[in-house]
């Protein structure tokens, strides 16, 4: 009897162990499978962009070494389209919009969080409406406004629209963060005779993690947007990288080498930036959760 019970207990123990081991493996299997699904298409494009046309179609899964290697796609891409100009436009538009959003947004958020003026909650609500209503729905009037201001086919038109687009969420989040800055610190500065502008500059570094997260979430949609460059600034001189690649791909749709190279050119800078900043980025998003 004793041995039966013991062996049963042993079985139970073993079963438990196997289940635990499988239980530990299951999550990895799911994550790994999904990671492959997420990465595979990206890697296929990057890899094949360095291959000859023959190798692209003949051995799509082979690495671009030896005979398969051929940078002809990049040569075509650079010869036929001004990718440097596209990048420059994208960097200017994204960079200037981002600075304006963070500057104007943090100033407004500071005023909303700090001062008790009549209409404060109402103004906060007014500025928050834009979080849920996409600015795209105003496109017809935005285009007419830009025509009146003679800003069509300039980068200014994009910068103004993207700044307006980024402000509502920025103000909403930063107001919350600025309310958490300790009162004593600001009052101490006031007693020392600091001006209100000086105190704003004092508060700003204290909400830096929030600024980082907001910055990234403002930046990505601007860099990737197709709609407004297409509507407001479609000239080849003002095309952003997203629009430039879209037009290039439409034109060279049958030149697979050039298409793959253009796609890779558009992807790589964002991927490099993302890999460098991904830890900070995700940490700053999740920072609010761990109090």
């Amino acid at each position: 009897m004793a041995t039966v019970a013991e062996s049963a207990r042993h079985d139970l123990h073993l079963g438990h162990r196997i289940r635990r081991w499988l239980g530990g493996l299951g999550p990895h299997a799911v994550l790994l499978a999904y990671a492959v699904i997420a990465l595979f298409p990206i890697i296929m494009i990057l890899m094949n962009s360095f291959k000859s046309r023959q190798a692209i179609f003949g051995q799509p899964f082979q690495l671009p070494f030896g005979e398969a290697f051929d940078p002809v796609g990049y040569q075509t891409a650079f010869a036929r389209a001004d990718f440097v100009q596209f990048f420059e436009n994208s960097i200017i538009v994204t960079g200037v919009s981002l600075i304006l959003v963070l500057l104007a947004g943090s100033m407004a958020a500071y005023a909303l969080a700090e001062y008790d003026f009549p209409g404060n909650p109402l103004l906060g609500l007014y500025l928050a409406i834009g979080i849920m209503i996409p600015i795209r729905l105003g496109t017809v009037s935005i285009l007419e406004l830009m025509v009146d201001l003679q800003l069509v086919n300039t980068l200014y038109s994009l910068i103004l629209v993207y700044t307006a687009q980024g402000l509502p969420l920025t103000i909403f989040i930063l107001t919350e963060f600025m309310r958490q800055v300790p009162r004593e610190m600001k009052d101490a500065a006031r007693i020392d005779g600091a001006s209100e502008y000086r105190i704003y500059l004092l508060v700003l570094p204290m909400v830096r993690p929030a600024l980082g997260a907001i910055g990234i979430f403002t930046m990505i949609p601007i860099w990737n947007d197709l709609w407004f460059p297409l509507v407001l600034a479609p000239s080849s001189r003002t095309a952003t990288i997203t629009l430039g690649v879209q037009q290039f791909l439409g034109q060279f749709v049958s030149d697979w080498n050039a298409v793959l190279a253009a796609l890779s050119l558009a992807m790589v800078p964002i991927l490099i930036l993302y890999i460098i900043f991904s830890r900070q980025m995700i940490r700053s998003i999740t920072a609010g959760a761990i109090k």
Partner: protein
Amino acid sequence: MQKNSIVGRRFPWHIVVFLAPAVLVYTLFMVYPLLDSLRLSFFTTTANERVFAGLQNYVKLFTNENWSWNFWNAFRNNIIFFIIHMLVQNPIGLLLASILAAKVKLHEVYRTVLFMPTVLSVVIIGFIWQLILNPLWGVAQSILELVNLGELYGPWLGRPESALITISLISVWQFVGIPMILFYTALIGIPEELVEAARVDGANGWDVFWRVKFPLILPTVGIVAILTFVGNFNAFDLIYTMKGALAGPEFSTDIMGTFFYRTFFGQQLQLGNPTMGATVAAMMFLIILIGVLIYLFLWQRRITTYEV
């Protein structure tokens, strides 16, 4: 929360200075165009002059056979687009987030990789998948043959009955990172004691998740749903990139965003019509507003009782 009282002091110019840039840019380039666009939907253009037309555009949109067919087609497709995101993207996002939140080994690496497609431009994603699914290249077919499912392969993007589903799934593939990261943030914010308490009471992992964790992240479920709704009814880039403004085949992938663009800017033979475009935009505005109001007044009000 106490604030500085400004009553009885001289006019606080600094408040104006702090608020002016944001309020001006936001009002001029966002609020004004949205309102003006709504106004334009009540006008029509005849002989280069804009005249007030009352509800004429709306009547046309819903009674003219051609217009109303296009509208309801785009609306129905957009609903399907949204349902696929809700049924596929958000559950997968939740599953991945719950695994990541358990702090498995290498979870930071997985997190980075899984979020990667989300940071890329929709234009790039659209073209990548067009190439991968292209029968000329045959990559998708080779992969399916590898797992003995070769006969499943077909020109999915070219068939009216499968194109919309295929594009929806591509969008899901790209944006699954957003619900994942939002659910992940909510899950790691749950106090450890609550989970421990349930474990001590003998609950297994499955029970802990559905009885303890899930009710606690319900506010995030609502946020994910409304973000998906607004994003989907505002989508445009992916379909424009993969299928052009005509959203083919046979308008089977036409959604509100592409219908709006076509109406406003025109297509091959048809001239663009700004006032009808504004009318379509106004309908999109209404649809999104209804979604947001349902979220704010039905969902969020009910959910606050669960908050800790």
